[in-house]
């Protein structure tokens, strides 16, 4: 009993000490560490946390340290809501969100409570401040990524017929998001769309869908899924001897894919919006130091960059004496070609346009690793905003 009392009082003392520390910048982190997307959610969250560690070790932002509260919501909307409410009553000024489920569920809440949310759900409609005034992210949206890939494919096309294009995606909000935009732009450029198939995120076999596609002989196939479904698709395509080039989207191409799909990845193209671990940019030196040179997935780099950009917005807001939600949002909107130490292409936000940039990086996938082949930067077309 005495022992129990000691432990309880230790807990209380620690929570008191935590509460008595000097004024800190409170950042909430909603992560998926145990749910459906935890395989990529963990490295992303590690990136966010390591960036906070890095900033705090440098002395914080304008001398104020960042205090974080991380909650695992297991990719469940209800738990995301209660996590958000818990952070709100804790007093967070800004939020680092995660995937489609929590970001979408919180769009209206963060707008009402005026808490900027930097998340990793790159759905294009979130870039329209009319729809989502407090949502930000630091990667080109899914639609822009697909358009950028199409641009690259079309500009490198050398045969004298229209390239044949097909799409494979899950029947899921995340997979469906870029499809209308991609089809429209493909037709605009002069592609011929020859097929569309659904492969679910949890599917273990894609043979029937790929057999149907193969009859149309597509030159390029968009794969909009996550790692496991992408690996299934690439392996089945290899087995069927398809000679199409597959373009895998951002959540479907990382280091896990290379090991899961083995030789089936060779020659295909993966999209990224950040550099990969080990790239020769200033930010990578810091990341290497933080991780003791242990290889991290690309999601880690994006998590790091997301927090880094948010910290810059907070710094500007503090300089103006407005360390609060609207202040941070307005500060973020003043960013012009802000370079997060080379980790991602430069970031700009505008009051009427939250697209961070229009750049997508294309990597050639192979078993040995990923090799950058091109960084495509599109024009910031007004009619693409939010679509």
């Amino acid at each position: 009993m005495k022992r129990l009392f000691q432990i309880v009082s230790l807990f209380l003392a620690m929570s008191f000490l935590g509460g008595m520390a000097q004024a800190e910048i409170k950042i909430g982190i909603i992560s998926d560490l145990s749910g459906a997307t935890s395989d990529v959610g963990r490295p992303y969250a590690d990136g966010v946390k390591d960036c906070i560690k890095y900033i705090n070790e440098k002395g914080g932002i304008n001398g104020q340290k960042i205090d974080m509260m991380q909650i695992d919501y297991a990719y469940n909307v209800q738990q995301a809501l209660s996590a958000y409410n818990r952070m709100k009553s804790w007093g967070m000024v800004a939020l680092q969100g995660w995937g489609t489920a929590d970001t979408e569920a919180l769009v209206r809440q963060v707008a009402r409570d005026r808490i900027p949310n930097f998340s990793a759900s790159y759905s294009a409609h979130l870039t329209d401040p009319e729809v989502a005034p407090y949502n930000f992210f630091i990667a080109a949206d899914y639609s822009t990524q697909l358009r950028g890939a199409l641009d690259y494919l079309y500009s490198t096309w050398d045969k004298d017929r229209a390239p044949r294009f097909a799409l494979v995606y899950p029947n899921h909000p995340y997979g469906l998001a870029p499809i209308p935009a991609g089809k429209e732009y493909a037709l605009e450029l002069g592609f011929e769309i020859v097929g569309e198939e659904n492969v679910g995120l949890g599917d273990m076999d894609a043979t029937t869908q790929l057999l149907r596609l193969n009859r149309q002989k597509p030159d390029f196939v968009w794969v909009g899924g996550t790692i496991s479904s992408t690996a299934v698709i690439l392996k089945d395509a290899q087995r069927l001897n398809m000679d199409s080039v597959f373009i895998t989207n951002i959540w479907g191409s990382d280091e896990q894919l290379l090991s899961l799909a083995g030789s089936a990845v060779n020659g295909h193209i993966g999209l990224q919006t950040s550099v990969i671990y080990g790239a020769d940019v200033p930010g990578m030196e810091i990341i290497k130091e933080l991780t003791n040179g242990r290889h991290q997935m690309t999601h880690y780099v994006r998590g790091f960059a997301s927090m880094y950009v948010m910290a810059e917005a907070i710094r500007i807001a503090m300089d103006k004496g407005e360390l609060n939600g609207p202040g941070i949002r307005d500060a973020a909107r003043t960013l012009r070609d802000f370079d997060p130490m080379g980790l991602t292409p430069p970031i700009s936000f505008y009051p009427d346009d939250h697209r961070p940039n229009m750049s997508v990086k294309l990597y050639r996938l192979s078993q040995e690793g990923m090799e950058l082949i091109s960084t495509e930067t599109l024009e910031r077309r007004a009619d693409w905003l939010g679509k």
Partner: protein
Amino acid sequence: MQGKCGLFFTTYAKECQVFHTDFQKSTVALFFLVLLAAPFFLSSYQVSLLNLINIAVIGAVSLNLLTGSCGQISLGHGAFIGVGAYATGICTLNGWPFLPALLFGGATTALVGMIFGIPSLRLKGIYLAIATLAAQLILVYIFMHWTSVTGGAIGMGLDPPVILGYSFDTDLKMFYLTLFFAVSAVLIVKNILRTKSGRAFVAIRDFHLSAESVGINLFRYKLQAFGVSSFLAGIAGGLWAHYTMYINPEQFEIGLSIQYLAMIIIGGLGSVIGSVFGAVFLTLLPEALGIVANLLSGFFPDISTYFLAMRDGIFGLILVFFLIFEPDGLARRWQLAKSYFKLHPFAH
């Protein structure tokens, strides 16, 4: 109570009373007083949990009426809640006031529920489960692909409920609204069970042939159970939609249906109070596990990583333990606890 050494009922009507003694009445009244005052002393996070519980209570008692009392197993409850959410949301987006929209959402869900309940005349047990599973899949497919109405994959943004110009835009205000509907739902179901329909439901559950031979119209009462249950599910959905202010098809997938089934199994099949316990338990469990994991991470950073990964496993383990050690659910535990105190020094 004077001079009596127990409860004796001399008429059926008396036995059917919801509250038998003054003591029961006063404790329930006290409970509600505390509940009504509680939000003023709780943080908005804790109030938000109460809101989630209230909404879950509506969903759970409605499913318990259908599955627990009438014996018609449904794997489509999550999608029915979704129908209510979308129907209510579409109405309020078109300028309807909240209450008519909510009732319309309930009515639409009742209709949809009855349509999918039609196979229940021919199908029983596991076959009905599969038929309702089909309802679940079909409805989510419709949410996802009827883009012009439901917003498709992008979903639908909504505003907090407004009743007669008063906006329920905080957790605190929302609490009283959801509590009102939760209490109403519990009372409705409790009272239905005391009527002819309620007894017919139980008779159908216990043995459909005997029920039919004593003159119960199986088709009518099964459809009635589907209708009432879906109506309440629709109300829960409408409240959920306007509480979260955003709905998309992902929220109403099979996982939600399973969660509601788990609530009524843990709470106690066929018991109204059990559904309430189940809803409270399953809403708080992930929060509690998360808080434990967070506390642990302060001391053993490595252990908490494993703990988080095990959280779903622990969740499943608790379900299994319930099925093994307390198949009658929390409702029975509650009875045992009550009788323990009632009989106190004389336990047997």
